[in-house]
């Protein structure tokens, strides 16, 4: 068996303020897998994602990150996190700039990236001139533009309407199948998690820990029709119940 | 007693000794005056305070300021000239130059800002000095000591003492007064209004100051020195002693007319002569300065203090 791309061993995370955000967490993320994180607000999903990205260090335990994950990670933060002084196109182009790509290459990459999230007309706008959902979409475009090996998404579609959300869900899956990256996806939507993932990690709060891990074996590619299948509905119910158990426990 | 504030143009030093003497030994008090001395300083400009009425009398370095006052309609007038010779001098390293005429070949001349606007113009016009030589003198001897070919300005009764102690050599002193710079110095200015409305006060102040100077130069100056050191705590007694000795030796105060007419003596002809020189130096245009307004001799030339000086053994 190949070693996992990312692995957490008995990880604790306590913040300076004293909050114990995560405790005794064990988790392995296989290369090329699609994992969703579900859990109540404040249970430590974002913190876990930041540990996976190497943006936080654990207070106890160990985080192992394979070499090909480091420096080749796309991250959609929970907040849009755009540079207010740069136009949308420049914001989206930033990761390429940081990789010192040639300007021509950048220009050809940015236009389709914007179009993919429906922002083709707003490349010249400043972030403050976008709606909340549009800002998140710009942030998604930025995370995808480098075709990262590891994609971490923190509630990327929460601010979007269902139609856009469904479309982007399918687009994301198509990309995942084409590029075979590893995805860790935080969402509050059970249906979204079921639609997208191979594995759903249900977290319990106070302190944050893994409550249950639910595997989903529906085959890919999954399309809109999958949402209408009994298997889908049944999985949703299983996950919802796991969530209920996690928040009761 | 009448309250009187007297502003000087520098920190307390031996060159102000006569005034401190008159406070210390009660000469002012005897004249019915309660005098406060307000020292000036390198960047402290007490001069506007006189016409503004914040001080009553002002000690002024030379007559140029008085010419400027008249030219600009400032209603003040010179009532006495305590120094017959201006102690303003140039210094050079020993043996660097043989004559005053050679000084204009010095590569560097450390000259303070105020001098650049007054007698430097005269040195240029009369003695061939050049602006290229100019470097600003911030009353710090270091740059002069460091450059053997340089010359610098200074007070003949002040700088040689510190050059001696800091540089360890006796500088050559070129007194401007010996080369045609014929201004009176350490003059006392008063407001025209005071002179007209209260001449008695002016007379008491001038005459008490003269007596103060006689006593300072020829009598026991220890109490005056104590006052000087109170106003200027870093002034060592040795410097005061050396300075006082130089004043006598160079005849700064008590020479020429002063020996017969009394300290503070002024002659209009000499003022006119000095004015003519400054005219030639281009500092003034003809007719700009009404010489009759520059000074009044009503309070001097009365022989005040001459007898006292002789009694104290002056000239011996």
């Amino acid at each position, binding site marked *: 068996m190949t070693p996992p791309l990312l692995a957490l061993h008995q990880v604790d995370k306590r913040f300076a303020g004293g909050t114990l955000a995560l405790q005794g967490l064990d988790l392995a993320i296989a290369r090329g897998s699609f994992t969703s994180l579900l859990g109540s607000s404040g249970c430590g999903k974002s913190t876990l994602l930041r540990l996976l990205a190497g*943006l936080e260090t654990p207070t106890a335990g160990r985080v192992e990150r394979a070499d090909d994950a480091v420096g080749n*990670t796309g991250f959609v933060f929970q907040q849009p996190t755009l540079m207010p002084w740069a136009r949308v196109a420049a914001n989206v182009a930033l990761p390429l700039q940081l990789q010192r790509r040639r300007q021509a290459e950048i220009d050809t990459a940015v236009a389709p990236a914007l179009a993919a999230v429906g922002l083709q007309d707003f490349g010249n706008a400043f972030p403050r001139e976008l709606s909340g959902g549009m800002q998140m979409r710009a942030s998604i475009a930025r995370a995808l533009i480098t075709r990262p090996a590891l994609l971490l998404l923190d509630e990327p579609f929460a601010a979007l309407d269902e139609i856009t959300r469904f479309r982007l869900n399918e687009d994301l899956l198509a990309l995942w199948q084409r590029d075979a990256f590893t995805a860790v996806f935080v969402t509050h939507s059970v249906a979204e998690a079921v639609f997208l993932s191979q594995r759903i990690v249900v977290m319990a709060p106070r302190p944050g820990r893994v409550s249950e891990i639910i595997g989903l074996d529906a085959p890919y590619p999954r399309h809109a029709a999958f949402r209408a299948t009994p298997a889908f509905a049944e999985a949703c119910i299983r996950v919802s119940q796991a969530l209920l158990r996690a928040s009761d426990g | 007693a009448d309250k009187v504030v007297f502003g000087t143009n520098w920190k307390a030093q031996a060159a102000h000794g006569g005034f401190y003497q008159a406070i210390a030994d009660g000469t002012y008090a005897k004249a019915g005056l309660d005098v406060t001395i307000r020292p000036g300083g390198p*960047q402290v400009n007490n001069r506007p305070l006189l016409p503004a009425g914040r001080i009553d009398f002002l000690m002024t370095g030379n007559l140029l300021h008085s010419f400027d006052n008249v030219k600009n309609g400032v209603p003040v007038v010179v009532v006495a000239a305590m120094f017959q010779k201006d102690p303003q001098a140039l210094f050079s390293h020993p043996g660097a130059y043989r004559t005053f005429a050679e000084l204009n070949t010095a590569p560097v001349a450390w000259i303070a800002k*105020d001098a650049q606007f007054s007698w430097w113009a005269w040195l240029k016009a009369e003695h061939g000095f050049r*602006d290229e030589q100019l*470097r600003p003198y911030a009353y710090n001897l270091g740059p002069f000591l460091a450059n053997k070919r340089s010359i610098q300005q200074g007070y003949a009764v002040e700088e040689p003492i510190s050059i001696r102690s800091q540089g360890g050599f006796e500088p050559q002193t070129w007194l401007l007064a010996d080369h045609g710079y014929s201004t009176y110095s350490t003059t006392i200015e008063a407001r025209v209004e005071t002179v007209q409305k209260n001449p008695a006060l002016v007379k008491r102040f001038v005459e008490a100051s003269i007596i103060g100077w006689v006593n300072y130069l020829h009598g026991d100056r220890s109490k005056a020195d104590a006052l000087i050191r109170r106003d200027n705590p870093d002034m060592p007694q040795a410097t005061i002693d050396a300075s006082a000795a130089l004043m006598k030796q160079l005849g700064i105060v008590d020479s020429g007319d002063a020996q017969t007419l009394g300290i503070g003596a002024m002659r209009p002809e000499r003022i006119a002569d000095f004015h003519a020189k400054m005219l030639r130096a281009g500092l003034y245009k003809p007719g700009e300065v009404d010489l009759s307004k520059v000074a009044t001799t009503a309070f001097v030339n009365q022989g005040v203090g001459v007898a006292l000086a002789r009694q104290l053994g002056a000239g011996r």
Partner: protein
Amino acid sequence: MAEPAIDHRGRWLTPLLSTLAMLAAWEAAVRWWEIPPYLLPGPLLVARTLFENFGSLLPSWWFTVKITLAALALAVVGGVLLAVLFALSRRAEASLAPLAVVLQVTPIVAIAPLILILVDSTTAALLVCAFIVAFFPIMANTLQGLRSADANLRELLRLYRATRWQTLRYLLVPSALPYFMAGLKIAGGLALIGAVVAEFTAGAAGRETGLASRILEASFRTEIPKMFAALVLVSLTGIGIHLAMQALARRVLGRWHDSERG
């Protein structure tokens, strides 16, 4: 705030009117209390003197302006470089910040002689002095600005393993701009005053003299209206620099920073 934005004409009219009102009050005060011109000349007299001496003041003004702008440029370069160094390394800040403070608080008057010994040309000495006066606000403000970069964006760049230089270029520098602009407004005035004060203390006379020499000369010679004329030139120059900086801030921050909206 609730107050409506002043319309375009108001933007010029208000300061103009208020300036005129202040000048009128000054003139009135001078006339009412009959303050003689050798103490405080009225603005009319100052204006006339300025007009009459304009030809002779102009070269001095130009000299001062040159020193000011050169010193400001140096201060910007020096201040920004130092701030960048400090922002990139706490160690560098810990080692060098004391030196920067010492430079800021050392009175020029005291060290001018030393500078004059070390530096040959008077103009260079003037520049050094004016620079010393002006660089600190740029440094302090830029540093605070560089430090104030958004923590989330900082993490984004860390994620992409941006080099220090990239972090600087793409994040820190733009974040510092509002602070830098405020520092520039302060330094603009300080460079001017630094140029003037430096000339007071380190300046030579002769042909190459700036406004400071004219102020001193007029002061020594009790030509107070002329002194005020020169001071007015200094003030006008300061206001000009200030307006230029303000326009620059508006241009640079206009479309994205809260401080320049409305």
